[in-house]
């Protein structure tokens, strides 16, 4: 991914910025221009809470080239406490530990890098809530 493309998504990958429709309250991550519920065009931006729970999960053993060094790794669809769903890796957890309903929080991690010389792309990954 060219640096400019990942740079444009920093508000979401770094700060979990979502859009809330000012007329009906629907939340979108990433934000949208038109609300699919009420066709509204005004949104307020807010940073989501970093907590949620696993909705479903799998283990990737044959990843795309960019993630070859990470395999095998767990991926989950996480339902955030603010209501939206997002797809992310689940790390710092044994595969057997990951189950539907597992409370997780999103930590800041390296997601992938362009070889040893290219830019490092950071973003969120889910880890189990243990405290």
């Amino acid at each position, binding site marked *: 991914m060219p640096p400019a493309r990942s740079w444009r998504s920093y508000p979401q990958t*770094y700060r979990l910025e979502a859009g809330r429709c000012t007329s009906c309250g629907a939340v979108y991550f990433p934000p949208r221009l038109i609300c699919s519920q009420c066709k509204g065009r005004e949104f307020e931006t807010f940073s989501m809470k970093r907590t949620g729970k696993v909705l479903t999960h799998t283990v990737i053993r044959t990843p795309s080239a960019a993630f070859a060094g990470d395999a095998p790794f767990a991926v989950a669809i996480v339902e955030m406490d603010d209501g939206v769903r997002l797809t992310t890796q689940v790390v710092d957890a044994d595969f057997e530990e990951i189950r539907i309903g597992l409370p997780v929080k999103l930590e800041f991690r390296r997601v992938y890098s362009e070889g040893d010389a290219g830019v490092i792309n950071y973003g969120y990954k889910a880890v189990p809530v243990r405290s």
Partner: protein
Amino acid sequence: MAVGIIGYGAHIPRRRIKVEEIAKVWGADAPSYKRGLELREKSVPGLDEDTITLSVEAARNALLRAGIDAREIGCIYVGSESHPYAVKPSGATVAEAIGATPDCHCADFEFACKAGSEGMFVAHGLVKAGLVKYGMGIGADTSQGAPGDALEYSAAAGAAAFIMGSDEERLLATIDETHSFMTDTPDFWRREHQYYPMHGGRFTGEPAYFRTVTGAVKAILEKSNLQPADFKYAVFHQPNGKFPVRVGKMLGFQREQIDTGRLVPTLGNTYSGSSPLGLTAVLDVADPGDRVLMCSYGSGAGSDAFILTVKERIREARDRAPQTRWLLDENIRYVEYGEYAKLRRKIRLAE
């Protein structure tokens, strides 16, 4: 005007490796390393963790305790000897991730293991001068020792972040005095493009660590007209378990003053994070009115010393984020040397 810490946060990777596991690979005698270093295990970062990611998590925890808007932070300094980039500031990514951009002064610091306390020192100074409302100083490292070298048993990963401010009602601890002591002492170094550092063996002790730390602490005690007995806690840089106890004894501090902030036996040496993380563990348990001494040490060589007094608000702020002893003792998973070698990129992969 009182200036001090209004928020603090720690972060430690979840994985640990035991001294026995490293000694086994190199045919070394684990009991003698454990005795010699007073160290049982150390933290190991994952492949997706580095100085920037650890700094972001520590900074987020500091913000939770401070309860301020990140946009009011006027400066961010990340001190480390393992910045992920040779050219591109770690602090810019940290500031972006916590929402402190764009009206923010930022620089990365390097001074072996005292880069973190430098950030605290400068952030404190800028708040005191009135140039920024709040300032953040972070010490973070994912340090490496050459395979089989004595450093491999201790080089660890972790981060601590501090937000400095002067709002009377937000202060968790005032910083009452500072002092820096610094000379050119070649005890530890890493040249450009070299992967692992070199060190001067026994030269790292007396003329380096002990002379510098005692120099800084004696000077700050004299400046503030205080004695070791006036402190509830003392935190010294901890490259191994023995040095902070011995330097404390040389200066007149008792073991009970030192042990609360001495994390190294189960954490390892987190370099720029070392004494800053020790300070977070002290703030987690200190009572209002307690006086705390912290003194870092960075090879090359220098020490930054701070005298702090804990304030009433510590009681309500400390539980807003994970405590350091919990990160250290509860949230852990052991790895074997093979996984450790992979995670620390000690295995050469096909291009």
